[in-house]
């Protein structure tokens, strides 16, 4: 067992999260993908903190949690307001913006 295993796991989770953002059309699911990516980064930070014997990695991870919490509030508020307008949370539904 080596610490690298944690890092590989984090890499996999990060990739899955990014794939979810790119593939899923439901904004809530896509947003959960972003959350997973942030958590993967946190796992990396915590692992490296242990590797370096330096706590700042953990502190950064802590800040990330705070930031993520604020982000979630904003994001979900936006999603809810869109839902109230359209009755859907899909990115595709009635997409008014041409791409």
């Amino acid at each position, binding site marked *: *067992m080596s610490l690298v295993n944690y890092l590989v796991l984090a890499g996999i989770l990060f990739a899955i999260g990014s*794939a979810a953002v790119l593939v899923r059309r439901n904004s809530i699911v896509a947003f*959960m993908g972003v*959350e997973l990516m942030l958590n993967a980064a946190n796992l990396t930070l915590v692992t490296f*903190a*242990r*590797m370096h014997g330096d*706590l700042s990695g953990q*502190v950064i*991870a802590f800040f990330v949690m705070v930031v993520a919490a604020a982000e979630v509030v904003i994001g979900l508020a936006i999603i809810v307001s869109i839902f109230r307008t359209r009755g859907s949370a899909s990115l595709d539904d009635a997409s008014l913006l041409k791409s």
Partner: protein
Amino acid sequence: MTGLTISAGEGVLFWILAPLMVLGALSLLFARRTVHIAVSIAGVMVGLAVMYIANEATFLGVAQVVVYTGAVMMLFVFVIMLVGVDSTESLTETLRGQRWLAALSALGLAILLGAVVTRAVLPEPVGLAAANADSNPVAVARLVFSDFVFAFELTGALLITAAVGALSLTHRVRLGIKVDQRTLAEAKLKRYGAGGDATLVVNRPGPGVYARHNSADMPAVDAAGNPVEESITTVLRVRGQERELPSAEELADAGHPYGSPAVEAPTGTQAKEIDA
């Protein structure tokens, strides 16, 4: 500083948790119901919390459970319940080939990150025994309030923004006077007195009355035998999950109009089969 020895137990823990977490994460790509995804991700978060603790980050492990699993993911579930609507999602592609492209780039990302960390000649792990001498929370707190104090203060701006934002997107100012139940009732009666519809005065029917179907997805039937659409909750209606009522004529032809027991009165769960 001495090198870090990683216990065999930690290895076992990792190899049990990691596959489960990856499976949970994969639900993001393959599960259809949003709620299922949310719960799986909450599970992944708990797994991460355990890993944090294994990685000598006790404080973070606890914070992870409290903040992520307890607050963030519950907020997600809450919103999913609120939004509810397209809890299932069609997984057909809107842009041809986009999924493959995305899968390919994600795979590439995974391979890249994996290669980067496995091929790097990482330094010998040191461990946090020394850094955590005064207990992990204390050591973390010291850093937060010294090296990272500016970042800490700045997050305050973030939290205020979040609060202001959420409020302005959702809070409605009351325009006009507040309508209480009494004025409402009086207004209704006044309208009735002025020749309005009698149905305005009485309560609206709930769903599934008249015995034959008593589930919430079945509309009520008015005196004329027509379904009352409003009796079903909006959520079910928007989802398209309300059930169609057989027309009064059909039922009358079959010999059991509304209000009379069915020929073979259903019992228990058989009701569903008969509908089908």
